């Protein structure tokens, strides 16, 4: 097992530990902090695969903006800490185990059928992405859609007073 795989396993393990902190913590404020740290470790896995544009997107937009807004929201609506853990975890875990085992069998079958796909390099160039006009159009469309949604949200909140 190479150093890369060990580092990947360590990052993934820490991400899982922090995500369990979200579930176990009684206070929403700490849960949102744990959630932000989990997402930073998910972004770190991208950095490990030399996918820096995605790392920047996740850390600066997903964690830097959305995560911090969630932390601020949790701090604003701070309620007395109480245990938020129901017995619904039993059927959820049983369903997850069934789905996980099915996915494992499917992956194993695919690996046997296509052994050439077992090891592949990740080659992503941000310049190639920007050179494709369809993707630029997609980003412009999403930005305009977000602006429309923000205007609608302002109208709803303003109109509900």
């Amino acid at each position, binding site marked *: 097992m190479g150093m890369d795989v060990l580092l990947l396993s360590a990052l*993934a393990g820490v991400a899982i530990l922090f*995500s369990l902190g979200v579930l176990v913590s009684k206070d929403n404020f700490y849960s949102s902090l744990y*959630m932000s740290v989990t997402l930073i470790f998910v972004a770190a896995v991208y950095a490990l695969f030399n996918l820096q544009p995605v790392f920047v997107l996740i850390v600066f937009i997903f964690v830097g903006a959305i995560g911090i807004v969630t932390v601020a929201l949790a701090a604003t609506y701070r309620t007395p800490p109480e245990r938020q853990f129901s017995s619904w975890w039993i059927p959820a875990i049983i369903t*997850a185990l069934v789905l996980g085992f099915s996915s494992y069998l499917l992956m194993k079958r695919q690996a046997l059928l296509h052994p050439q796909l077992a090891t592949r*390099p990740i080659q992503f160039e941000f310049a190639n992405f920007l050179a494709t006009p369809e993707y630029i159009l997609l980003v412009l469309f999403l930005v305009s859609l977000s602006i429309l949604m923000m205007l609608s949200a302002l109208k709803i909140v303003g109109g509900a007073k």
Partner: protein
Amino acid sequence: MQLDVISTSAIYITSFVLLLVGYVTALSSKDLVRLLISFELMFGAVFMSIIPLFSSISNTAFGITIVGIFTSSSELLVLIIAIILFDRKNKNIYTRSISIGGDKL
């Protein structure tokens, strides 16, 4: 770093566990802020599962990531509005106060 069978398995297992924790958090949430946190955790799991796509269709995978980020931003916006309106109406943000939608078991 190359994407081999072990690293792909590690990525998918992590993604699966993050998604599971997100689901269990959503199921056991007693207020809307905890629900929002669980949704973002689920989006984190989605981002994790996209990594193997970069080895075969990298540009499309990056496009999917951007769509995912915009979707999560919109989800946050809608849920914040819902929390504000819900708080104005009910003076709390507890999910037990929700009386419309869903099935009653």
